[in-house]
């Protein structure tokens, strides 16, 4: 039945299964002819990734745990070194300040740089994933178009004759 006739019929007797098939066909047609718009793929992917990232109960509970149980979880960037042991204590402070603190600081900076690099890597990996999905959508649409064009060009196969 033609679309116009279906639409007319549904005005008195709507059939949800048929309407959903009609809607799916509209989406498929758009994907086939106009190619699913890149922004639509990106939106779909973006929404999907956001949902995946939002659905992280283990991370959520860990964060909740830290926030609920530790009052001093925030970073303290400046070391406050002091002593109550008089002259000997001052020697320990000097050792901590001059000998232990510099290499520790160097290690922290290294970790920070590596964390930043990891972040960049993650971002690039996500972009690659996104580009792959977009490119896959394009290729699928192109293959579908070529197959359709091929089917329209090639003549119908000859009927098989029954054997003797």
């Amino acid at each position, binding site marked *: 039945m033609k679309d116009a006739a279906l*639409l007319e019929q*549904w*005005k*008195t*007797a*709507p*059939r*949800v*299964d048929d*309407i*959903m098939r*009609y*809607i*799916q066909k*509209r*989406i498929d047609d758009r994907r086939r002819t106009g190619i*699913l718009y890149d922004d*639509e793929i990106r*939106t*779909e992917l973006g*929404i999907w990734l*956001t*949902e995946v990232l*939002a659905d992280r*109960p*283990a991370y*959520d*509970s860990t964060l*909740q*745990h830290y926030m*609920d*149980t530790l009052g001093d979880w925030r970073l303290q960037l400046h070391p406050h070194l002091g002593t109550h042991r008089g002259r000997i204590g001052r020697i320990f402070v000097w050792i901590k300040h001059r000998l232990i603190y510099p290499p520790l600081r160097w290690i922290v900076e290294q970790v920070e740089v590596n964390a930043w690099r990891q972040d960049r890597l993650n971002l690039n990996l996500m972009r690659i994933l996104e580009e792959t999905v977009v490119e896959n959508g394009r290729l699928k649409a192109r293959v579908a178009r070529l197959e359709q064009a091929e089917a329209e060009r090639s003549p119908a196969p000859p009927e098989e004759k029954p054997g003797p």
Partner: protein
Amino acid sequence: MKIAFVIHRYAESIVGGSEFHCRRIAEEMASRHEVEVLTTTAVDYVTWKDGFPAGVETINGVKVRRFRIKAKRNLVHFKEISDLCFYEKGHTADDEREWVRANGPETPDLVQYIKDHKAEYDAILFYSFRYYPSYFGLLEAPEKAILVPTAEEDAAVHLSIFADYFNRPAGALFLTPEEQDLVGRVAHGVLPPSDIIGFAVDVPPALDAAAFRAKHRLTNPYLLYVGRIDRNKGCDGLFRYFVEYDRRKTHDIDLVLAGTKALDIPNHTRVKYLGFLTDKEKFEALEGSQLMVMPSPYESLSIVVLEAWAMGKATLVNGLCKVLRGQSRRSNGGLFFNNFSEFCEGLDFMLENPEIREAMGRSGKQWLNENFSWTRLLDKIDGLIGRTIKRP
């Protein structure tokens, strides 16, 4: 007959789905039988904070017996035990029972009362399998128990302790065929005698949608969401979809939200939040809308979808929820979406074809009237009690 209802919260001001379902059925059953509700003092569904005094009171002609809560819900412990039970394979049945206890509301006095007084009741209806009163209460009186599981397709229903639990009551009442199918699968196909009751909708008289629209300055056509505005109800996804849909400017439509807010609402000119509405206002909001949207992926029965159909309004629901999809297909009262493309196309279709949209609303209303009425619903409950529970 003397019938008890066991439910985790009970009050006229509580609008949660299973609580509302229980209250309305208890009130209607009171016209046929002696009804008593056994519940807790909790008012808040997250922390189980006390809000009502313990003891006996009467609400709309129904005797309500409240029991004190032993402890508020410890959210950190609840998250930890949830992570253990839902994501760790090595957990035990005791861990799962601890999950039910942590889920609460923990009321050992209520369970003890059921144990001591079960002989006084002909039947006890236990609402919502996942909460402490129904889980531990039913195990004390399985021979008198009719379970109303209100089960949804989420992680909790698949905990191993519930496979046996669903076999224990004398009978079970389901809200939809999808819920019956789900619980049957969890219970490995062994279910007690059961029936599907759904729900009957009462539309308030003398609605004035024009006055409602004027009061809330709703000048544009709107898509309506009514319910708790919560991530668990799929509202975050709805916001993302709608904002992106609006960016395309295919149709001139607002998204109007009504209900308790448990999630930040986007600051967007086309998204309007009305706050909490009274029952009458809710129906006026439905009457004034173009259609109603329900994005929740987990529903055992969406009463507000039935209310939309009672008002002759078409719906657009989350197709990932088997119950909502099944209801839409059975009633022909609305469309469903599984992703952003289907959301856009479905909404476009509804707005471009107002006659079909109205026909879907009429179809939903007809299906509701044919299948759900109070007489039919109460007859089903009486029938199941008569078939399953032996009386002296």
